[in-house]
């Protein structure tokens, strides 16, 4: 009974970790095949905090506009005010577990923040940064 419980708990803890490693390594391999790498967490962090000026509004935008500067805390969507759960996988184990989801948000968020697509290198760097949190 007790063993079973420990076993299930252990599985519940381990599965997301695997999924995260899976999703991230799958994407890293993909970005490498597109000419990216090696990836650096420091470069990712720099991009994460870099401010881009939006052509239309003239206002500065960066990833922290919605995700805040502290990735262990909840952020807030800049346009709607909706709470966005912490990005650091250490406090939010669901983060970086689905390759599809990550891809989709890279498309959306890069377009909104940078006004263009992110390069394979940039995406790999950001992942290296985020997974270290």
């Amino acid at each position, binding site marked *: 009974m007790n063993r079973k419980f420990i076993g299930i708990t252990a599985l519940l803890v381990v599965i997301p970790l695997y999924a995260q490693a899976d999703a991230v390594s799958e994407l890293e391999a993909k970005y490498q095949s597109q000419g990216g790498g090696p990836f650096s967490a420091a470069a990712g962090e720099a991009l994460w905090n870099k401010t881009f000026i939006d052509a239309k509004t003239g206002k500065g935008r960066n990833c922290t506009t919605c995700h805040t500067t502290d990735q262990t805390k909840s952020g*807030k*969507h800049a*346009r*709607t*005010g*909706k709470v966005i759960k912490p990005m650091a996988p250490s406090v939010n184990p669901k983060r970086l577990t689905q390759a599809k989801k990550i891809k*989709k948000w890279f*498309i*959306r968020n890069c*377009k*909104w923040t940078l006004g263009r697509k992110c390069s394979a290198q940039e995406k790999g760097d950001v992942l290296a940064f985020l997974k270290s949190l």
Partner: protein
Amino acid sequence: MLNQMTQPPENFSKQESKVRVWDIPVRLFHWTLASCFIVAWLTLDNRYLDIHVFAGYLMGGLILFRLLWGFIGSPYARFRNFTFSRLEVWDYLKGVLHRHPPRFLGHNPAGSWAIHLLLGIGLSIIISGLLGFGGEEQQGPLAGWLNYPQGELMLEFHEWLSWLMLVMVIIHLMGVLVESLLHQENLVAAMLTGFKPSAVDAVSSASHWKIGSAMLAIIITVSLFWFQGYLTETPEKRYQPFYGSALPDNLLWREECGACHLAFHPSLLPTRSWKAMMEGQVSHFGEDLFLEQNIVKEIEPFLVKNAAEQEATEAAWKINRSIPKAETLLRITETPYWIKKHQKISDAVWGHPKVNSKVNCAACHIDAEVGTFEDAAMHLPDDIEATAITE
């Protein structure tokens, strides 16, 4: 018996003696009913619907009790001792005009008629309120008896009756004032203490304190039970007085349409709006949603099937009927009903860090996630003054 209770005013000054006319249950009934009536008028705003409804239930319970007490209560409380013919009322009123009406220990003929009317109107108010509440809000014991439009009509009747009752109350108060002046006695004090000066041989009521205490205990228990949610709520988990029936849900929709903002329930916009929105997903209010076809294929039917036309909630019904048929609005916040409901809210509130935007419904509506938008589930963030929305 009536004759014993009727005395010319000259008599009592000679033989000073006190008689208990109003027993405790009658007094408790009287003042609690009056309080309920005032509270109900003060809680017309949807935000206080739970208090308003409670005042109504209490009023209903009190009136039913009073009807029973009119048969089994102490002498002055019994209907048969204050039932007068029209002629008697007329005679009494003539006496008032000549400034010399006969004195009654219990209810005088005019007052008796006022009380019968007040009880009758009061009961009609409660019944129409229950029917309206069951129709327009689909809540309470009569939920579902009427549909939304019928419920709305019933509430209009409810309001009209309440004005009638207010007029009756004012007449009643004037009557009390006039009689107090003409007989040089304080009728308000009598309703508080129960006693009136009288001749020695007049019938005196028992205090019925046991029944009075039981009434008080029931009122307090029921109030605590009704409002207990406020005692246990936390700033994170606000107390919600009324829950609507569960609305249709869909996991994929929640995930895809609930990431950037609240997953606005399909019941908040009509079919044509959702179709147009999914068609235009590449330019969704300035965002490209990049939704794949297989995702659209699941979400769109869910939106369409549960759109406002289904009238799953009061809000759905009211939003839908407020939109001109020829218009396809993409924003809930641009529908006439939404605009009307939120027009008193100042820009300062919309810009408040805890609100941020009009689309952040969850900042003010406890049940925004579920989509029911019940009337009494509106709760402004704590540091916004309630006055910010009442002009």
